[in-house]
C-alpha cells in the first residue's frame, strides 16, 4: 500500500521478501530511493523502466485503473532476475484525489520464462524447417532470442581460412549491431585462437561466464581501441553453446547479457542448447543439399561436349541444347578425335533423354575416342561401339556419324553413317546430304557402314546435326525439317559462326522435342606459303635462298637476309629478324633434315606493309621419328621464337616449313 507521496505504508510479508527486505518493518523503514536503486526494471521488450512508468505512481497521479504491467526486474546486487505482474488500483478518499494505492505483485517468473523458452523454440523450429534463405532464417532466429533470452545473440560459423564468420548477429539497437560487426572485422577470430568461442568449437562443451568485470575485459583486449569497443558493447555475462549435429560441431551460438548483473542460469542454458540443436540440424541439412547439388552439377558439366571444339586448321562452330528443364547434358554428343592421319569428327545420338542418356553417351564417347585414336579408322570406332552396346544387358541404341578429315588440303574426307541423319556438304553455296545409310549402333551383331569419300576443296563446309534439329516444332506446329536447315546453311555460306548463331537463335524460340546438336566445320585451303608460291600477291619478295645444310648455314642465311632487307626495317625488328632466321636455320640443321651439306635448307622472306614474313623449309625430321617442327634448343629456342615473333606456325610434314611474321 502506498500513500499519496508514493511511500509504502503497509505491506505483507511476501512483499517484504520480494523487495529483498527481511521483514515488513525493515521494508517500511527503507526509503523508496534506496529500493529503487536496488532493482533495475525492464519492460517485456527489454527497455529500461523509470519510476514514473510504475503503475503505482500513475495511479497516484490520477489514472483510474492502469492495465497490469509485466516487468522484468533485476536485482543489481544479487543478479537475481524475476518477472513480475504488477496490478495497481487506487483506494480513494471521499472526493476524487486518491488517498492510497494498492499494489499487487505476482511473481510469474517461472511461467514467463517457460513461456518465452517454448515460444522461442517453436518459432525457431518454424523458421529453420525448410528455409529458402538459410542466412536470413538464422538472422531471424537470432533476433527472436532478444531480449527474452539475452541482450546479444550471435551465430558464428567457421569460414574461409579458418576465420570465424558472424552468420547472424542481433541486438535491440541496430547501432550496436554495427559495432559488433566492426569489432569482428577489426579483430577476426580464428578457430585456432585460445579465446572462448574457438574453445567451444574444439571441445564441443558449452561455456558460461558470469559477472564479467572490467578487469577481464581489459585483459581480453588487444589494444585501447579494442578495449573501448568491447566496453561499449557491454559484457556482463556470456553463454556459448556449440552447434552440434551428426557428431560434428558446425559452429557456435553466443548469447551475451550486457545489462548489469544480468546472468544466465541453468534454465537459460537448457533453452539455448535446445535452440542450438535446431540451428545445427538446419545447417547440416542445408549443407547436405548443397553438396548433392554440387556433385550433380560437376557430373553434368563433365558430360557436356566441348562448346568450342578445336580441329587443327579448320574453323568449327557448335550448337548444343539438351532437352529437358535446367539440364546441362543429354543424349546427344560430339567429339573431335585426334588420329595420326588427321582427325575424326563424330556426332552421336543416344536413344532416350536426361541423365540416363547422358550417362550412356559418356560410354559411347569414350569407346569411340579410344578406338578412333588407336586405329585412326572411323570404321573401327563404329565397330567397337557397336560391340560395346550389344554387350550391354538392356537394349542400347546409338546413332552416329563419323567423318575422317585430312590434316591438310588437298585431301579427301570419309563419311560413315550409322542410323544418323546424313551431314550436309556445303560447296559453292549449295548444300547436299552426304553419306550412305548403315544400321544404328547396338542394333545388329554384324554390321557394315559403307564409307563415302569426298575430295575436299578449299572452303568446303560440313554441317553435322542430330535429328533433334529436324524434329523441333515451329510456331504453327510444323516440323523444322531438312529443307529449312539446308536453306539456313546455304544462307550462311562459309561463315560457320554465323550458321551456328542463326540456328541457335531459331531453336531458342522453339519447342524442342529432343536434344539438339550441330557442328559446322569449314576446311580452309592449305596455308599460303612463300615456299609453295601461294603467298599473297601484294607482298614484296625479298629472298628465296637455298642453302646447303651444315653449321655455316645460319650465318649465310643471316647475311643474305641482312643484305636483302637493307634499311627497310627499324633497328630492333631488323635485329630480331636476323635472330629469328638464325634460330630457324639452326633448328633445321640440328633437328630437321639438313644436317649434312647434301641436304638443303630454303629461306624465303617477303615484306608486306605491316609485317616481315620469314619461312625456313627443311626436308623434315632427321632420324627422330614422330615429330616435326622446331624443338627446344636447350630449352630457350622455342620460347625465344614465341617472344620475338608476332605470329608463327609450322606446316606440313614433308617438307616442314616454319613461318614467322614480325610486325614492323
Amino acid at each position, binding site marked *: 500500500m502506498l500513500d499519496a507521496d508514493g511511500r509504502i505504508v503497509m505491506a505483507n510479508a511476501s512483499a517484504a521478501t520480494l523487495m529483498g527486505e527481511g521483514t515488513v518493518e525493515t521494508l517500511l523503514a527503507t526509503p523508496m530511493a534506496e529500493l529503487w536503486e536496488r532493482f533495475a526494471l525492464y519492460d517485456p521488450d527489454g527497455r529500461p523502466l523509470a519510476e514514473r512508468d510504475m503503475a503505482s505512481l500513475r495511479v497516484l497521479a490520477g489514472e483510474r485503473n492502469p492495465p497490469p504491467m509485466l516487468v522484468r526486474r533485476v536485482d543489481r546486487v544479487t543478479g537475481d532476475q524475476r518477472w513480475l505482474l504488477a496490478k495497481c488500483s487506487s483506494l480513494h478518499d471521499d472526493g476524487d484525489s486518491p488517498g492510497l494505492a494498492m499494489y499487487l505483485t505476482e511473481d510469474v517468473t517461472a511461467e514467463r520464462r517457460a513461456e518465452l523458452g517454448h515460444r522461442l523454440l517453436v518459432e525457431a523450429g518454424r523458421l529453420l524447417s525448410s528455409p529458402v534463405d538459410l542466412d536470413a532464417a538464422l538472422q531471424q532466429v537470432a533476433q527472436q532470442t532478444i531480449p527474452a533470452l539475452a541482450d546479444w545473440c550471435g551465430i558464428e560459423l567457421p569460414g574461409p581460412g579458418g576465420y570465424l564468420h558472424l552468420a547472424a548477429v542481433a541486438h535491440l539497437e541496430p547501432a550496436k549491431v554495427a559495432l559488433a560487426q566492426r569489432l569482428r572485422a577489426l579483430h577476426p577470430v580464428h578457430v585456432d585462437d585460445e579465446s572462448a568461442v574457438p574453445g567451444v568449437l574444439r571441445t564441443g562443451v558449452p561455456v558460461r561466464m558470469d559477472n564479467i568485470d572490467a578487469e577481464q575485459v581489459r585483459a581480453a583486449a588487444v589494444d585501447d581501441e579494442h578495449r573501448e569497443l568491447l566496453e561499449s558493447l557491454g559484457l556482463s555475462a556470456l553463454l556459448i553453446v556449440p552447434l552440434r549435429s551428426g557428431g560434428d560441431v558446425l559452429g557456435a551460438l553466443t548469447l551475451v547479457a550486457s545489462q548489469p548483473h544480468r546472468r544466465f542460469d541453468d534454465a537459460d542454458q537448457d533453452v539455448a542448447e535446445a535452440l542450438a540443436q535446431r540451428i545445427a540440424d538446419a545447417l547440416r541439412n542445408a549443407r547436405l543439399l548443397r553438396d548433392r547439388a554440387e556433385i550433380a552439377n560437376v557430373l553434368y558439366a563433365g558430360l557436356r561436349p566441348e562448346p568450342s571444339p578445336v580441329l587443327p586448321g579448320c574453323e568449327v562452330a557448335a550448337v548444343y541444347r539438351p532437352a529437358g528443364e535446367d539440364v546441362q547434358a543429354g543424349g546427344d554428343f560430339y567429339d573431335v578425335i585426334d588420329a595420326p592421319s588427321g582427325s575424326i569428327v563424330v556426332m552421336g545420338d543416344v536413344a532416350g533423354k536426361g541423365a540416363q542418356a547422358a550417362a550412356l553417351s559418356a560410354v559411347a564417347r569414350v569407346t569411340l575416342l579410344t578406338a578412333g585414336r588407336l586405329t585412326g579408322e572411323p570404321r573401327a570406332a563404329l565397330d567397337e561401339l557397336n560391340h560395346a552396346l550389344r554387350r550391354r544387358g538392356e537394349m542400347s541404341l546409338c546413332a552416329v556419324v563419323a567423318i575422317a578429315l585430312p590434316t591438310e588440303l588437298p585431301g579427301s574426307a570419309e563419311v560413315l553413317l550409322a542410323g544418323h541423319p546424313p551431314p550436309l556438304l556445303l560447296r559453292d553455296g549449295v548444300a547436299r546430304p552426304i553419306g550412305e545409310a548403315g544400321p544404328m549402333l547396338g542394333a545388329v551383331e554384324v554390321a557394315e557402314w559403307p564409307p563415302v569419300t569426298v575430295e575436299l576443296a578449299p572452303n568446303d563446309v560440313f554441317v553435322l546435326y542430330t535429328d533433334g534439329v529436324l524434329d523441333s516444332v515451329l510456331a504453327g506446329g510444323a516440323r523444322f525439317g531438312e529443307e529449312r536447315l539446308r536453306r539456313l546453311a546455304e544462307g550462311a555460306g562459309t561463315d560457320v559462326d554465323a550458321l551456328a548463331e542463326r540456328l541457335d537463335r531459331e531453336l531458342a524460340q522453339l519447342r524442342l522435342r529432343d536434344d539438339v546438336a550441330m557442328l559446322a566445320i569449314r576446311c580452309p585451303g592449305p596455308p599460303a606459303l612463300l615456299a609453295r608460291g601461294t603467298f599473297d600477291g601484294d607482298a614484296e619478295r625479298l629472298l628465296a635462298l637455298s642453302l646447303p645444310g651444315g*653449321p655455316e648455314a*645460319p650465318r649465310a642465311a*643471316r647475311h643474305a637476309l641482312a643484305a636483302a632487307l637493307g634499311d627497310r626495317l627499324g633497328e630492333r625488328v631488323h*635485329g630480331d629478324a636476323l635472330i629469328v632466321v638464325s*634460330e630457324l636455320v*639452326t633448328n633445321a*640443321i640440328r633437328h630437321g633434315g639438313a644436317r649434312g651439306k647434301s641436304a638443303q635448307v630454303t629461306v624465303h622472306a617477303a615484306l608486306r606493309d605491316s609485317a616481315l614474313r620469314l619461312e625456313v623449309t627443311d626436308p623434315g625430321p632427321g632420324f627422330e621419328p614422330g615429330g616435326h617442327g622446331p624443338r627446344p634448343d*636447350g630449352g*630457350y629456342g622455342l620460347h625465344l621464337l614465341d617472344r620475338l615473333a608476332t605470329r608463327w606456325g609450322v606446316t606440313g610434314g614433308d617438307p616442314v616449313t616454319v613461318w614467322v611474321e614480325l610486325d614492323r
Partner: protein
Amino acid sequence: MDRDELKFTVDVDEGPDGSVVTPRGELDMATQGQLRAALEEQARRGTVTLDLSGLRFLDTSGLRLILETAEASRRDGFAFSVLPGSAAVQRLFDVAGVVELVPFRDAGEGDRS
C-alpha cells in the same frame, strides 16, 4: 661482303687476376665451339671473365654456351663473370628471360655476387 665480317676470333688475356676472354664477330652454331674451347681452358686458371663487347651477333647457340659456363662455374668452383655487350646482344638475354642466370658485371666493377 667484307672479309673481316666473316672472321670470328677469340682473344684471351691471361692476367694475374684471371683471364679475360673476348670473342669478336658473330657467335652462332658454327663459331660457338671455338669459344667453348677457350672458356674451358681458361676455367682451369680459376677466374674467367667473358667480355661480350666484341660480339656483332648472338643467338641461342651462344646463349646456351654462356649459361652452361655459368652453371659449370657454380659446380666446379671457378669464378665466372660476364661483361655485357651491345644493346642488340643484351636484348637476347632479356627476351629469353635469362638475365638473372648470367653473372653480369660492369667493366671496372668488382664481382657482383
